[in-house]
């Protein structure tokens, strides 16, 4: 048997401060674990997430990027996630169009009360990305060690 190093994906999660980041805190308090491959970046609102950040993450070696925000209608800033939803819909569709795996990007609406959903979503996402394997199509070889 060849000794193959187990593939551990790198996953960036953009979480809005008011819902999803609080949801992640709740997941933590409730000890609802999810893989350490997920690293969270706190943003004020999902509408702060620029498509450039997502591409940047892939460039720098991320294998999956997930954006989590308040449920539509519950945005702390009333409308931010609606705009974010349109932007991500178009961006993801474009990535798909360019032949970049659709599953590498995901949007979830997770409220501050949904610690369980946060954990479940992250577990699922890690599984999906692990199954997909390394990000090859949006990588920047200069950033590989």
């Amino acid at each position: 048997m060849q000794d193959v190093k187990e593939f551990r994906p790198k996953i960036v999660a953009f979480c809005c401060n008011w819902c999803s980041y609080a949801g992640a805190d709740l997941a933590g308090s409730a000890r609802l674990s999810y893989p350490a491959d997920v690293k969270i970046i706190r943003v004020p609102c999902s509408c702060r997430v620029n498509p450039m950040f997502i591409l940047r993450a892939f460039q720098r070696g991320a294998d999956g990027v997930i954006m989590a925000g308040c449920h539509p209608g519950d945005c702390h800033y009333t409308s931010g996630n609606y705009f974010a939803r349109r932007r991500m819909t178009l961006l993801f569709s474009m990535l798909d169009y360019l032949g970049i795996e659709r599953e590498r990007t995901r949007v979830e609406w997770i409220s501050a009360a949904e610690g369980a959903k946060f954990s479940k979503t992250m577990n699922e996402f890690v599984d999906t990305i692990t199954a997909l394997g390394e990000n090859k199509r949006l990588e920047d070889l200069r950033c590989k060690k």
Partner: protein
Amino acid sequence: MKKLSLAKLNDFFAAVAAKETLYLPVNNNVGKAEYKKWESGVEMSSALNTVRSAKDFFFPQTENLMEFKMTGKSVEVFDTREECEDFVIFGVRACDAASFAILDSVYLVDPVDSYYKSRREHGTVVTMACSKPAETCFCGTFGIDAANPAGDVTVWEVEGAYMLRANTEKGEALLASVADLLEDGCEKCVEEAQAKTRAILAKLPLAGLTTEGVGVGKTKELFDHPAWASLSESCLGCGTCTFVCPTCQCYDVRDFDTGNGIKRFRCWDSCMYSDFTKMAHGNSRNSQLERFRQRFMHKLVYYPDRNDGTFGCVGCGRCLARCPISMNIVKVMKTLGGKN
């Protein structure tokens, strides 16, 4: 003079490629010619010329210079230079062949650009005389003979065969290495082919274009010429002309932070860009007029001033064909005084 029967062309390519990498113009997925590595089955393009010039071989669009890394308080520097191997470029036209001399005059004078020099030394240029020039061609204006290109080896296509002439030692060596595929050539056939080509060249719409009004010593006269305003008015400031130009040689040095260290690379720059030669105090040329003027003054005045009257343009016509708004060096020359 040697002769290569076209029936043996593939054998010839195979024999060359067996020793060193062979590049030649090939049609790409949209039917335009670009230089590609020869492999069995690859066919040479019949196009007059490639979209990008052959300067890429010696002066590529991007090139890593070195890397460095900070660990704690110290900086480590790594030489990332890759050893250049011998290669042959086949099918270079007279204009591009002439452009190498212009690049040499920049990069091979002190301080010598060692990256460029290494490539030049390893490269053998096989040129191909033109037989069907286009309306955008005006190499003759600069004294370049499309029917008799320079290069290490020159090739003419005559009926059913190529005539090959080695011009340099490198060229001799190349032909010697494939001697068993070659027969003795025919000087007369070449002369006939040249005469044919020259007859066509004389009929081209730009055949009468002269360098009158531009050239050595014209800086004062032309710098404040009122025509620059209208000529540059529609320029978009894109870099298309400079990037397809075989003689444009400006580059920028940039650092890329990979997260694990810095990669320092150089890449083509364009004097048409607003951030060209931007320095601490700002830009030296603030308006598109100044930038536009710079490009043409450089090719038509400053360069000849410093190089015994040799112009910085070889008349390949790429910028004429590619400029999004069809403003180009020919229109500039005509406006500044050159007669058609």
